[in-house]
């Protein structure tokens, strides 16, 4: 940490010595406004120590509009996801570094001191100060009407909220009694916790500050029920659906839903500069055209998007590749980072007593896992480009060990048969299907949300594999909500769903997906619910393996050193793979990224992941630029 701080400090000193921001020319987009005095010149708009992006990227030229396709108006939030201005953020090595913050210090994993940049401004020109943090903490997060459930749970350690202090105008501190290792990752995530609000703007909607009559009138006009709901609607920094809310992101939204096209305009007070002292972003506007998701590949093919990844899937690759000659773009394939693209989740709490006993037997889960020919799945569905194995960490993770991925993941019918025989499931009926202890045939219903053909195709293949060991499988598509509720109610025996979100964790990232920490983990919903609700709902863990995973997870949260965390992680991964709590299939599938040939600084190889990474966000789209600042559109 100290070494890192020293490094960033050096970088800043170096930066302030080598460049004087005044040396760079004014952004052409603002030239007129600066000349007429509506906007101060660039040097005055930047913080006194702007963030210098100097990692060997090309120095760009200003101008051009980034046209992209979105599938519904809600996707305006992509400007926040891709904009990726965070208090702290991930760099491409997946380390957390200061971003909006000039620097930060962490003591004992529980005392977080944040230093803001002197002279940093909101997009409307108002200074960003400690008051914006105080306003959120005291007047929003701890206001009973605005947040009836209190501050977000990620800010609670054992149910305890942090002590918040304003040290001075640009320094704030959050102190917990125990370490909170989830805090910084939550700030760096794709949909982060915003600890700050434009207080000067939001106060006009707040009952404690604003003009009561005026607020009442606005509430009436917007057909809201109370000032609180008006405040919350205006205040959504993530949804990014208000054209008047000041922001710190590179582009600010200029129109509201419903609309066919959303326009993001460059933020004149953005805090980053390139190595030559030019204020970022390079591109003047982001134009987001709303189209149906089925039309996205076709429109991309015809060259109507400058940089497109959303709503494109691997199956569009050949079609898009063919369009390279037609529309002057390049298709690159980026890695994805789920622990497994899709995984089977045996529900350990299933109500049926006979099945419950069977599913909880590790030999059963291992047998099912070994009876799947992952190579065939990979060849048939993913053209052989995926990584076969369990639902665990990927080779790109520093915690990777081939053992985690390979154990009980090889296709071995004999071994699977032996395991099932070993369990005493030796009886078979006339069709060769094994019989359960109560004499019923072993027919497994795998429930699926059935939203894409990928799931059903995979289940079709798995059906044939399992039949070889005497297990008959049926798949049953359900509506997503129904599926979820059935799993929560322990009605579902096995479900198929996405694998772990973060397949590339470092020891500093939370292992919560590997322990019963959430109802949304489909192998142990009731235990997760028990933890989530502090014991008010759900059931306590009554199995050794998951119990141990939970203890390890809590130990990880309390750990203060990196070595300790790494050791805990390794034990967690070992137990998780050993117990086959989820049956992983194929991971590392590829995401096509279509990039206009006029666009620079977009890496040809990358990692397309929601969290960590914010999809394109980690690669800093504010540094992407067009050849000669021209997007090539009429």
């Amino acid at each position, binding site marked *: 940490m100290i070494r890192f701080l020293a490094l960033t400090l050096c970088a800043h000193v170096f930066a302030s010595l080598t460049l004087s921001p005044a040396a760079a020319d004014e952004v052409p987009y603002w030239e007129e406004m600066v000349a007429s005095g509506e906007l101060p010149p660039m040097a005055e708009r930047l913080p006194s120590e702007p963030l210098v992006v100097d990692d060997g990227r090309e120095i760009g030229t200003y101008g051009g509009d980034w046209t992209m396709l979105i599938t519904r108006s809600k996707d305006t939030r992509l400007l926040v996801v891709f904009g990726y201005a965070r208090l702290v953020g991930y760099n491409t090595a997946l380390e957390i570094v200061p971003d909006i913050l000039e620097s930060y210090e962490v003591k004992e994993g529980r005392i977080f001191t944040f230093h803001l940049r002197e002279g940093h401004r909101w997009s409307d020109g108002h200074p960003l100060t400690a008051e914006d943090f105080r306003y959120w903490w005291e007047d929003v997060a701890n206001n009973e009407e605005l947040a009836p459930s209190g501050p977000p749970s990620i800010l609670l350690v054992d149910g305890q909220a942090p002590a918040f202090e304003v040290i001075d105008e640009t320094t704030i501190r959050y102190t917990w009694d125990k370490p909170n290792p989830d805090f910084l990752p939550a700030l760096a995530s*794709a949909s982060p916790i915003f600890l700050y609000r434009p207080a000067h703007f939001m106060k006009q909607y707040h009952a404690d500050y604003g003009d009561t009559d005026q607020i009442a009138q606005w509430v009436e006009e917007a057909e809201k029920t109370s000032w609180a709901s008006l405040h919350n609607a205006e205040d959504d920094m993530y949804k990014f659906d208000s054209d008047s809310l000041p922001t710190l992101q590179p582009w600010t939204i200029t129109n509201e839903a419903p609309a*066919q096209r959303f326009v993001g305009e460059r933020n004149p007070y953005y805090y980053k500069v390139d190595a030559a002292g030019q204020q970022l972003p390079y591109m003047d506007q982001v134009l987001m055209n709303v*189209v*149906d998701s089925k039309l996205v590949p*076709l429109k991309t093919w015809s060259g109507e998007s400058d940089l497109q990844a959303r709503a494109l899937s691997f199956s569009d690759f050949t079609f898009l590749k063919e369009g390279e000659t037609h529309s002057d773009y390049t298709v690159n394939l980026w890695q994805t980072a789920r622990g497994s693209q899709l995984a089977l989740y045996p529900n350990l709490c299933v109500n049926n007593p006979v099945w419950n006993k069977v599913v909880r037997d590790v030999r059963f889960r291992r047998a099912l896992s070994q009876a799947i020919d992952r190579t065939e799945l990979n060849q048939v569905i993913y053209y052989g480009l995926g990584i076969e194995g369990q639902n665990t960490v990927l080779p790109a993770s520093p915690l990777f060990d081939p053992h985690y991925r390979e154990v009980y993941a090889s296709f071995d019918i004999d071994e699977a048969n032996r395991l099932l025989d070993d369990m005493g499931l030796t009886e078979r009926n006339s069709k060769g299907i094994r019989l359960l202890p109560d004499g019923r045939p072993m027919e497994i219903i795998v429930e699926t949300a059935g939203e894409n053909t990928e799931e059903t195709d995979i289940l079709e293949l798995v059906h044939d594999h399992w039949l070889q060991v005497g297990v008959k499988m049926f798949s049953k598509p359900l509506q997503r909500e129904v599926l*979820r509720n059935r799993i929560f109610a322990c009605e579902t025996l096995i479900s198929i769903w996405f694998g772990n979100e973060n397949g590339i964790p470092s020891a500093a990232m939370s292992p919560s997906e590997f322990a019963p920490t959430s109802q*949304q983990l489909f192998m142990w919903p009731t235990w997760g619910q028990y933890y989530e609700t502090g014991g008010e709902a759900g059931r306590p863990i009554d199995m050794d393996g998951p119990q141990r995973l939970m203890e390890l997870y809590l130990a990880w949260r309390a750990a203060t050193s990196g070595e300790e965390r790494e050791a805990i992680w390794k034990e967690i991964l070992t137990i998780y793979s050993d117990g086959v709590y989820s049956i992983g299939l194929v991971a590392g599938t590829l995401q096509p990224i279509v990039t206009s040939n006029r666009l620079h600084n977009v890496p040809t190889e990358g990692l397309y992941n929601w969290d960590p990474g914010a999809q394109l966000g980690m690669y800093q789209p504010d540094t992407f630029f067009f050849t000669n600042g021209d997007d090539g559109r009429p």
Partner: protein
Amino acid sequence: MIQYVAYRLVIMVPTLIGISLITFIIIQLPPGDFLSTLIAECEASGQKGCAEQIDLYRQEFGLDKPIWHQYLIWVTDLMQGKMGISFEYEKPVSEVIGPSLWLTIIVSGATIIFTWVVSFPIGVYSATHQYSWGDHGLTLIGFLGLATPNFLLALVLLFLANVWFGTSIGGLMDPEYIDAPWSWGKFVSILEHLWIPVVVIGTSGTAGLIRRLRANLLDELQKQYVVTARAKGLPPGRALVKYPLRMALNPFIADIGNLLPQVISGAVIVSVVLSLPTTGPILLRALQTQDMYLAGSFLMALALLTVIGVLVSDMLLAVLDPRIRLGQEASH
């Protein structure tokens, strides 16, 4: 006549109440509510802490109240002319639907005109030249339009229009005109895009109209008075237009009841496939996410238009065809 209209107007009230009940129940039938969709989406994109906002939303949207209470809130608001709040957009429903309304009317209006302009002459020709090559050929084309899946035809036309004319794919105008004020360029751009949805939606309707007009006209052409008129030397054109055609028009007029709601709703599926900025996709999305006030108020508007449309077509029929007697029906 006046008595009849008054009677019909009174009958509308219980009809609409019934429709509103059914609408509301059907929207509520699928398990979960808007918030469960919200959580599902939130989690599908890999976010954490999604469940936290839920109680707040539930209170704010009144989703914690029993269903009958939610229904009463909605209906009382409707009677005051308030269409409620759309959960998804967090805006009054009227603001959500409003902007796309006029484009919907343009598309639907053009489609209806297209359907009539195509099917009317073909129907008349087919009837007067029964079993000729022309009759068979044109009917075949009409049925092809009916048989081709709309979305497929839409995708093919989009692709061809892009390759041949360089028209941008989907939508009703080139992207740069979306927020631009009206200009000649914008008008031309709309015309360039408009023909695809009009043809796609229109072709599916032509076959039905052609066949109905042909059948009705054939019935009339056999009748004594036509034969007499011809025998007395009335020119064939006049002998056709004066009475038989007028009688054969009944189905067109009776269709007006369905026409009004069509003008507002647009062809939903085609609009979705073509990414048209019309109300159809908004309605579909509202139903999918159980955005109940948006969907409910929209469907109620459609119901109201249908009821009015049926009334209008009944009245027009009476004017057009003296054989139809309304008063007797009303007195039953």
